[in-house]
C-alpha cells in the first residue's frame, strides 16, 4: 500500500477523508454512530474492526431483541436449570452432568461458504465450532452435522452434498472426533441455500472451565496456531450481511473461502488443553469470524483493563498484508491466549512441543482502551466494548405473511389416500425409500464414529451417546432435530416441535434431557415475512424450553438464507443434551430379540400436515403441523428414562417424520428382525401407519417385563398400546400387507447410493 498510514492522529487531522463504509457493509447511520463514539472519523483499521464486528453475523443486530427471550424465559427450576454452569454469552454454554464433570456443546452454521466451496466450507465449519469448545477449556469429544440440501435429484445437489460430506468427514476424521449423529434433509427450498450446521460436544472437569477474558495489567496476549494469511478477508461482513448473488449484472462479491488445516487444529486442541491443565492460561479466545478484530475486542471488553497489540508481531503467511487485512483475516486454526508474564515461557514451551507457532502480540493495560500499533504508530484507539458489545440493535419490522392463512387452510385431508393393503404397502415402500426417509449410511459411513473409543451410540440411533467416565459409565446423549416443513406451516409451533422431537430422541436412548443449543436458519431479516418467521420461532422455542425446563445454553443465527425473493423454509435446528448415569443402561433402537412385545406409547390422531407422506405421495405442503403437548412429552420422557434405568425395555425408537411405519421399518432393519403388527382398534390403518402425531415412541418389551412396564404406564397416565411382537423375517401389518425385510432393506438403503455414488 502506497497511501500514507492512516493513523489515529492522521484520522483526527483529516476529518473529511471519505471511507468505504458502504462497501464494508455498514449502513449510513451505523457509520455515523462510529464517528460519534470515536469523536472523529475512524481510521481504516478501526473501520475494518467495526464493520466486521457490527455485521449481522457477529453482532446479531437483527436477532438480538428476540434472542433475549432465551434468557428472560430461562427455566428457574428442574434438572436443566440446576445444571447450568455457564449460560448464553460465552463461546458455548456449560452444563453440570454430575461426578464433577461439565459438558459444553454448541451448534453453528457454515451455510454460505459451503455453497460456494462445499468441501472447504463444511470442513472449516467443523473447525470453527471445535475451537469454540476448546476455548471453554473442554476437550472436544464428538461432532454432529445437521445438513439440508436442495432436491435430491437436482444436479447442483450432486455437487454440493458429496463435497460437504467429504469436507465434514475430512476435517472431523482427521481431528479424531467421532461423528455421532446429525441430519440429512432434502427440500427444493434449500436449492442455492444449503444449510450446513455443525455441533461439537466437549467435556471438562468443573475446575477447568475457562472464560474468555483478559484480566490483569501486564498479562501477555499470545497469538498461536496458523499464520495469518489473506483468506476470508471481509468474509464475515460480506458473507453474513448480504447475499453474494449477482445483482443487476454487477460482478458478484465473491467471498474468499478459507481452506482448513485439520492437522493444525488437532495440534491446537492438544496444546491448548495442555496449557489449561498446566494452569498457564488466564483467558482464551478462538479466532473465528472477524479474526483478530473479534478476539482482541472481545478479550479486552470482557476483562477489566485495556489492551495494547503490536500488529507487526503477528506471524504472517503473506508479508504484503495491510494492517486492515490482518485485522479482518479469517485464517483458520488460530487462537489467542492471555497469560501472566511469568507463565509465558511455559506456554511457549508447550506450543513448541506441539510444533505450534506462538507469538506474544500484546499485553493487558490498565485503562479501558484497545490500542493497536503498526510500525510504531497507533492505528486503533477504541473502547473495546463499543466494538464487541455495543453494536447496532434493530427492531426489524415483521408481519405475518399474507399467504400464511391460505397455506394453513390447504389441509391434507383433501389428498387421496391408499385405500387397501396393497396400496398401503406401496405407500410404505415409497416412504422408506424417499430421500428424506431413506437410510443415510452413504453419508455416515464417511465419518469415523469409533475414534476415542467412547462412542456408545452413533447413527442410526435416536441420539448419539458418548461415555465420559469409563469407571462409572457416566455419559451424555445428544440429538439434533428440525423440521422446516412444520415450521413453514407454523413457525411458532415448528420451533416447539423441533425441541419436542430432539428432547424425545434423547429420552428414547435413556438419557435425561438437560439443555438446549440451537441454530436458527432463516431468510432475510429485511423481509418482514422472514422476520416474522424468525420472531415466531424464537418465541416458540423460548416458551417450549421454559415449559420443558431445558435452558438454551447457546447457539447461532444464520440469516439471509435466501436467493432473490425465495427464502428457505424457516429452519430452527435444535440440539438437546441429556445425561445418563451409566451408559450400560442405554436403550438402542434395534429390535434385537424375537418375542419381545412392541408397544406404541402416546396417542395417535389424524395429523398429516407437513408430513413425510404428504410430501412423498403428493408433493404437498399445507395445513397445520401436528399438535405439541409438552406435558405429554415430559411424561413420555420420564417413562422412557425410567424404563431404561430399570431395564424394562430392550429397544426404543421415537416416532416422528414418516410416522409409525417409518419407525417400525428402522427398528426392524437395524436389528435384522421382523415384526408382526396389529392396527389398534378404532384406528384407521393409514392413520395408524402414517400420521405424525407427537409424543409417541415405539418400545420393545421383554415378556418378563410386560406387567411391570404396562403398570408403570397406566399408573402415570401414559397411553400404551401393545401393537405387535418382534418376529420373523418381514414387517407384517396384519390384514394389510407383508414386507419382507430384504425388500424393505433394499428400498431403504439403495436410494442415497443411487443418487450420489
Amino acid at each position, binding site marked *: 500500500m502506497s497511501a500514507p498510514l492512516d493513523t489515529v492522529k492522521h484520522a483526527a487531522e483529516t476529518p473529511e477523508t471519505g471511507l468505504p463504509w458502504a462497501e464494508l457493509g455498514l449502513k449510513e447511520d451505523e457509520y455515523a454512530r462510529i464517528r460519534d463514539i470515536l469523536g472523529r472519523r475512524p481510521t481504516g483499521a478501526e473501520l475494518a474492526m467495526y464493520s466486521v464486528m457490527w455485521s449481522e453475523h457477529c453482532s446479531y443486530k437483527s436477532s438480538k431483541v428476540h434472542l433475549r427471550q432465551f434468557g428472560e424465559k430461562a427455566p428457574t427450576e428442574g434438572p436443566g436449570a440446576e445444571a447450568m454452569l455457564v449460560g448464553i454469552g460465552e463461546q458455548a454454554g456449560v452444563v453440570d452432568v454430575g461426578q464433577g464433570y461439565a459438558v459444553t456443546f454448541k451448534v453453528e452454521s457454515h451455510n454460505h461458504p459451503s455453497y*460456494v*466451496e462445499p468441501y*472447504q466450507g463444511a470442513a472449516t465449519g467443523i473447525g470453527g465450532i471445535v475451537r469454540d469448545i476448546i476455548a471453554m477449556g473442554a476437550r472436544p469429544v464428538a461432532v454432529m452435522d445437521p445438513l439440508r440440501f436442495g432436491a435430491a435429484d437436482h444436479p447442483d445437489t450432486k455437487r454440493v452434498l458429496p463435497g460437504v460430506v467429504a469436507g465434514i468427514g475430512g476435517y472431523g476424521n482427521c481431528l479424531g472426533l467421532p461423528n455421532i449423529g446429525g441430519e440429512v434433509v432434502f427440500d427444493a427450498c434449500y436449492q442455492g441455500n444449503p444449510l450446513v450446521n455443525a455441533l461439537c460436544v466437549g467435556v471438562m472437569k468443573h475446575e477447568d472451565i475457562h472464560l474468555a477474558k483478559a484480566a490483569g495489567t501486564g498479562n501477555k496476549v499470545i497469538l498461536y496456531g*496458523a499464520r495469518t*494469511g*489473506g*483468506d476470508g478477508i471481509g468474509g464475515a461482513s460480506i458473507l453474513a450481511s448480504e447475499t453474494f448473488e449477482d445483482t443487476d449484472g454487477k460482478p458478484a462479491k*465473491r467471498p*474468499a*473461502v*478459507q*481452506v*482448513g*488445516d485439520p*492437522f*493444525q487444529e488437532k495440534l491446537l486442541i492438544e496444546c491448548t488443553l495442555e496449557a489449561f491443565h498446566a494452569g498457564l492460561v488466564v483467558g482464551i479466545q478462538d479466532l473465528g469470524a472477524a479474526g483478530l478484530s473479534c478476539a482482541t475486542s472481545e478479550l479486552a471488553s470482557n476483562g477489566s483493563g485495556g489492551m495494547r497489540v503490536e500488529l507487526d508481531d503477528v506471524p504472517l*503467511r*503473506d508479508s504484503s498484508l495491510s494492517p486492515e487485512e490482518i485485522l479482518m483475516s479469517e*485464517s*483458520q486454526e488460530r487462537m489467542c491466549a492471555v497469560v501472566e508474564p511469568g507463565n509465558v515461557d511455559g506456554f511457549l514451551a508447550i506450543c513448541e512441543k506441539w*510444533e505450534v507457532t506462538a507469538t506474544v502480540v500484546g499485553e493487558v493495560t490498565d485503562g479501558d482502551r484497545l490500542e493497536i500499533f503498526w510500525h510504531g504508530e497507533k492505528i486503533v484507539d477504541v473502547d473495546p466494548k463499543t466494538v464487541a458489545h455495543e453494536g447496532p440493535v434493530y427492531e426489524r419490522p415483521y408481519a405475518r405473511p399474507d399467504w400464511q392463512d391460505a397455506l394453513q387452510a390447504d389441509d391434507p385431508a383433501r389428498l387421496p389416500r391408499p385405500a387397501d393393503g396393497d396400496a398401503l404397502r406401496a405407500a410404505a415402500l415409497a416412504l422408506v425409500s424417499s430421500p428424506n426417509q431413506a437410510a443415510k449410511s452413504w453419508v455416515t459411513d464417511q465419518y469415523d464414529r469409533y475414534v476415542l473409543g467412547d462412542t456408545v451410540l452413533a447413527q442410526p440411533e435416536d441420539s448419539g451417546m458418548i461415555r465420559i467416565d469409563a469407571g462409572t459409565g457416566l455419559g451424555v446423549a445428544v440429538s439434533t432435530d428440525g423440521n422446516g416443513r412444520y415450521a413453514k406451516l407454523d413457525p411458532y409451533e415448528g420451533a416447539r416441535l423441533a425441541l419436542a422431537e430432539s428432547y424425545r430422541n434423547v429420552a428414547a436412548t435413556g438419557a435425561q434431557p438437560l439443555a438446549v443449543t440451537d441454530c436458527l436458519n432463516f431468510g432475510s431479516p429485511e423481509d418482514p415475512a422472514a422476520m416474522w418467521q424468525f420472531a415466531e420461532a424464537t418465541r416458540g422455542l423460548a416458551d417450549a424450553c421454559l415449559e420443558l425446563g431445558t435452558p438454551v445454553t447457546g447457539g447461532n443465527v444464520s440469516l439471509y438464507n435466501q436467493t432473490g425473493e425465495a427464502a428457505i423454509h424457516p429452519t430452527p435446528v435444535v440440539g438437546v443434551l441429556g445425561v445418563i448415569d451409566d451408559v450400560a443402561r442405554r436403550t438402542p433402537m434395534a429390535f434385537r430379540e424375537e418375542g419381545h412385545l412392541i408397544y406404541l406409547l402416546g396417542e395417535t390422531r389424524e395429523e398429516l400436515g407437513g408430513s413425510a407422506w404428504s410430501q412423498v405421495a403428493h408433493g404437498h405442503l399445507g395445513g397445520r403441523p401436528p399438535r405439541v403437548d409438552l406435558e405429554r412429552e415430559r411424561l413420555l420422557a420420564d417413562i422412557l428414562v425410567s424404563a431404561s434405568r430399570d431395564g424394562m425395555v430392550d429397544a426404543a425408537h421415537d416416532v416422528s417424520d414418516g410416522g409409525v411405519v417409518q419407525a417400525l421399518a428402522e427398528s426392524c432393519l437395524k436389528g435384522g428382525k421382523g415384526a408382526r403388527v396389529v392396527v389398534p382398534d378404532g384406528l384407521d390403518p393409514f392413520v395408524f401407519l402414517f400420521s405424525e402425531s407427537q409424543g409417541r415412541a415405539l418400545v420393545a418389551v421383554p415378556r418378563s417385563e410386560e406387567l411391570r412396564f404396562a403398570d408403570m404406564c397406566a399408573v402415570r397416565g401414559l397411553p400404551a398400546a401393545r401393537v405387535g411382537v418382534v418376529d420373523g423375517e418381514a414387517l407384517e401389518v396384519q390384514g394389510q400387507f407383508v414386507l419382507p425385510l430384504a425388500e424393505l432393506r433394499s428400498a431403504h438403503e439403495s436410494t442415497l447410493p443411487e443418487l450420489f455414488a
Partner: protein
Amino acid sequence: MARVVVDVMLKPEILDPQGQAVQRALPRLGFEGISDVRQGKRFELEVEGPVDGSALARIRELAETFLANTVIEDFTVKVRETDGTERAVAGTDIPSEGAPA
C-alpha cells in the same frame, strides 16, 4: 493421440496445508535451501483427434467448471510436446508469476 495436461494449484493467497506439511518436513530430512513448497493436482488427459484451438477451448472449459474450483484454485492448460516439454497454452490462467497469458 496427444496429451494435454491441466495443472491445478491453490491460489497464492489460499492456505496450502499440504505444501506446508512438506516444507516443514524438509529440515528434518536434511534438505535446506527450499524456501516454499506448494502442492497441487496434475491431470493428464489423452485427447483423441487433433489438439486444435477448439479442443483446447473445451479443455479449458472443463478445467474451469470441473477440474478446478476457481474460487480457491488457479489452473493452467499445457500441451505436451514430443520432446516432453510442456508448454502453457495462451488464454489459460497462469498461477502467480507465470508466462504471459
